[in-house]
């Protein structure tokens, strides 16, 4: 079990964004988190990565309780995320973005950095080669020196994934990676996430692109109004009447293939 969510709730003033949610993710899985707008999916991510702590409940990562610890510690333990509204370091180059992603994988401090000790140089070398390899993986090698904010939307999303991967996470959280992508690009994204899975990374995916979700995910949890509506394999979910009513819409719509 990589991640275990136990009875997590989150309230904002009067609004309960999450109510008593539990689910768990196995190693190597691609796990889907879907549901209507405002169902609480992003809120769940924020609780897991400690942007804010849950109001109640606990979150276990590799059997360790990580509820409410500092966000950077979560990353150091092996969870990394992307953001629904892209949050790159917009003024940095593409490569630098990925290097920052590798922060938790390196250790040099002020003095080793300034005096360029041998171990620091080695470490830096390694960071760079990993970063380049990741850019290759997401298909951004040729933009290495470009300033991040000048990338097109879809490229920015892929850069976010590369940056998150640079922290060598055991669990990767993706928040709507396909938003703003066309079908061709979404197809590329499919292969990318698959490749990430091959690297042994477990993925928790929020996405509204149903074809993508259904093809990628091993299991899916559906949230609705902050409550858990259903959980199961893609087939089970697609055929769940409640989910269809709340979220997927009727079969008749031929665009949801």
């Amino acid at each position, binding site marked *: 079990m990589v991640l275990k969510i136990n009875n997590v709730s989150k309230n*904002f003033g009067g609004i309960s964004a999450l109510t008593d949610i539990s689910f768990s993710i196995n190693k190597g899985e691609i796990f889907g988190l879907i549901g209507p707008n405002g169902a609480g999916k*992003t809120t769940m991510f*924020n609780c897991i990565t400690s*942007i*804010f702590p849950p109001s109640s409940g606990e979150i276990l990562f590799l059997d360790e309780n990580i509820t409410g610890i500092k966000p950077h510690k979560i990353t150091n333990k092996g969870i990394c995320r992307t*953001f*629904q*509204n892209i*949050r790159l370091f917009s003024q940095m180059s593409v490569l630098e973005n990925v290097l920052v992603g590798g922060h938790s994988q390196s250790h040099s401090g002020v003095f080793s950095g300034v005096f360029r000790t041998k171990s620091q140089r080695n470490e830096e070398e390694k960071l760079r080669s990993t970063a380049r390899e990741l850019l290759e993986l997401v298909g951004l090698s040729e933009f290495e020196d470009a300033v991040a904010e000048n990338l097109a939307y879809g490229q920015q999303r892929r850069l976010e994934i590369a940056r998150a991967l640079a922290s060598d996470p055991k669990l990767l959280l993706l928040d709507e990676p396909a938003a703003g992508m066309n079908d061709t690009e979404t197809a590329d994204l499919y292969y990318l996430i698959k490749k990430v899975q091959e690297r042994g990374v477990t993925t928790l995916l929020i996405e509204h692109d149903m074809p993508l979700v259904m093809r990628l995910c091993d299991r899916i949890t559906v949230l609705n109004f902050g409550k858990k509506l259903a959980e199961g394999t893609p087939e089970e979910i697609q055929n769940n009447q409640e989910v269809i009513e709340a979220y997927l819409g009727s079969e008749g719509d031929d665009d949801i293939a």
Partner: protein
Amino acid sequence: MLLEQIINGITLGSIYAIVALGFTLVFGVLGIINMAHGEIFMFGAFIGVTVTSTLGLPIWMAFLAAIAATAILGYLLEQFALRPLRGKKGVSHLAPLISTIGVSIFLENLSHHLFGAGNHPFKSSFAEIHYTIGSITIYLVQILIFVISVILMIALSYWLSKTKAGKALRATAENLETASILGVNTKQIITLTVIIASAMGGIAGILVGMAFNSVNPQMGLSIGLKGLAIIILGGMGNVKGAMAGGLILGLAETFIVAYGDSGYRDAIAFIAIIVILLIRPQGLFGKKTSEGRP
């Protein structure tokens, strides 16, 4: 004595509050700390001196002249020091800080050349009107200052929260581009705001001149710094906060003199904000920023 000191504190606090309102308004709409606000205030005071003491005209003319002059200064400030920086790509948020500091240096030295260094007395019979109750003397100006500050506060907070123009102003403050696609003429709104804020500075200038009978080119700095402390204390961009912050500071300064060590009077404003900010980083009345929506 206590009552007299309270009157002193409220007078001072009301002045601080009016100055702070000007800061708050510009900060609220532009997100800019207008470092020249204190100097605009000083200019207002000098116009008051010129109209009453030098030209010997009645006090209401002084108010009109000061409001007009500072409004024009506000317009020029917007036109030459703020507008060129707006909407340019890669402009750091520090640029307007520096350019308004530039304006403040310019205005301070200009007024020195125009009006001369040193204190200028504010000679107006109006400033002499006072009432004596027992051993307590209260000047009409002191009452006026308090009343004006309350009126301005109420008017401003109504304007901002209830009127269309006020909402447009807040929209502009939040995001220029968004406001403009909603149909707001952002240039006009911004100019208007800076002008109103400056005119309020002008009013404050005259009131201070009358209350303390001292006007000099440097007066903008010290009151300006206090004004800054207050908007932080009360919560940035918050009208009621500015008023409350002003009164708190005015009373605190008075009481530290009356019952403590007057040597720390200038520090009290900043000690207060440091303490407040540590307890409530958003200021006394500031809204807590939403729990991060990444």
